[in-house]
């Protein structure tokens, strides 16, 4: 497994995302730049310029025509993927920490940061996928999560609800039409840093600073799986083909010895999704904590974005695909 190193950011990565086909990889960073890369060879296709603050989040619609980004400049921006043109800017009172298109691309959610005088919210935006049509500034709804602020959020299948992951470690289900909380569970003992859906959105994985990742059933929020590690986690992803999950994180730079920093010892850790306590492999390389992990939709490669400012694209080798538990099949 020889990684491809993507060098196009000067500060830490905050989120990376593949498009549905997996040929494109989008990356955003504190350096205010959005990059798009060919995922198979790491060649940079272009950049999307316009944000004037750290960019926290990115998502692309299912037809790969529209890109949505959220920034510390208190805006969310919609871009035409092909041309890099900014099609619309939504202005908010605080930073945008997470964006996500709905399954049908007709809506997007934007998680706004909580700051003095402003509660954290989840704003539901209407998205017109025809690039010639003007977007509406008026949100469909604004959700005010109860208690702890939302850190990450995703849509349920068929837009049934949205799922939110919170600073206090709880996971909740919200009715985006009414803004009401449907369900909530105390999932983690510390802040939730990532929340990624399975391909069919029937379950999802959460990553937390409490050093664990967990899988929940979307409809019921029933707890299904838990993966324990020895470091705070920033990201967790589910792999197709193999029943694995990939976890990434690490102690913050301040707590890390310079030796560790130099050696590129920060690892993406692979656990068996169903067997929970079985760690099946590690992929080293980053020189600082891993902030974001994304898996190619075909399950043959994955990428990680680090505090070190690099994106590493890993294509799995044959051993990875051969790996199985013969006694269980």
């Amino acid at each position: 497994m020889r990684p491809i190193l993507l060098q196009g950011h000067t500060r830490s990565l905050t989120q990376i995302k593949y498009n549905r086909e997996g040929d494109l990889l989008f990356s955003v960073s504190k350096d205010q730049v959005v990059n798009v890369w060919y995922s198979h060879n790491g060649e940079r296709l272009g950049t999307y310029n316009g944000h004037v603050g750290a960019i926290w989040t990115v998502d692309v619609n299912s037809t790969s025509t529209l890109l949505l980004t959220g920034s510390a400049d208190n805006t969310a921006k919609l871009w035409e993927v092909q041309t890099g043109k900014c099609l619309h800017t939504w202005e908010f009172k605080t930073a945008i920490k997470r964006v996500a298109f709905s399954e049908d691309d007709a809506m997007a959610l934007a998680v706004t940061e909580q700051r003095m005088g402003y509660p954290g919210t989840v704003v539901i935006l209407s998205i017109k996928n025809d690039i010639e049509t003007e977007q509406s500034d008026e949100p469909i709804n604004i959700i005010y999560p109860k208690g702890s602020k939302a850190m990450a959020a995703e849509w349920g299948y068929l837009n049934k609800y949205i799922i939110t992951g919170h600073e206090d470690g709880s996971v909740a289900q919200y009715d985006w039409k009414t803004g009401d909380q449907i369900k909530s569970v105390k999932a983690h003992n510390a802040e939730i840093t990532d929340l990624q859906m399975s391909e069919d959105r029937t379950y999802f994985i959460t990553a937390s600073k409490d050093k664990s990742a967990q899988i929940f059933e979307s409809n019921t929020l029933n707890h299904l799986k838990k993966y324990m590690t020895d470091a705070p986690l920033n990201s967790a992803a589910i792999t197709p083909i193999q029943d694995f999950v990939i976890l990434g994180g690490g102690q913050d730079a301040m707590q890390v010895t310079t030796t560790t920093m130099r050696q590129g010892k920060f690892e993406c850790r692979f656990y068996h999704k169903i067997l929970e306590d079985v760690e099946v492999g590690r992929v080293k390389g980053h020189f600082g904590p891993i902030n974001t992990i994304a898996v190619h939709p075909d399950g043959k490669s994955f990428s990680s974005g680090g505090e070190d400012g690099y994106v590493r694209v890993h294509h799995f080798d044959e051993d990875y695909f051969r790996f199985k538990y013969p006694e269980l099949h």
Partner: protein
Amino acid sequence: DDDWVKLKLSKGQFEHRRRLMEEWNAWRKRVEKELAEERENAGIVSPSSRRDDDTIEVIE
């Protein structure tokens, strides 16, 4: 230098793991059936089945 672990299991561990696999597979079967019904009722095709699968080879 990727180290994919090889496992030697006791009988107890083996039974435990097989149970976990069976439980998961049974749950998937149920959930996938419910999802298919809900999608059909909503008249919406699964986004994953929309994707062009020609380039994806099956790995045994």
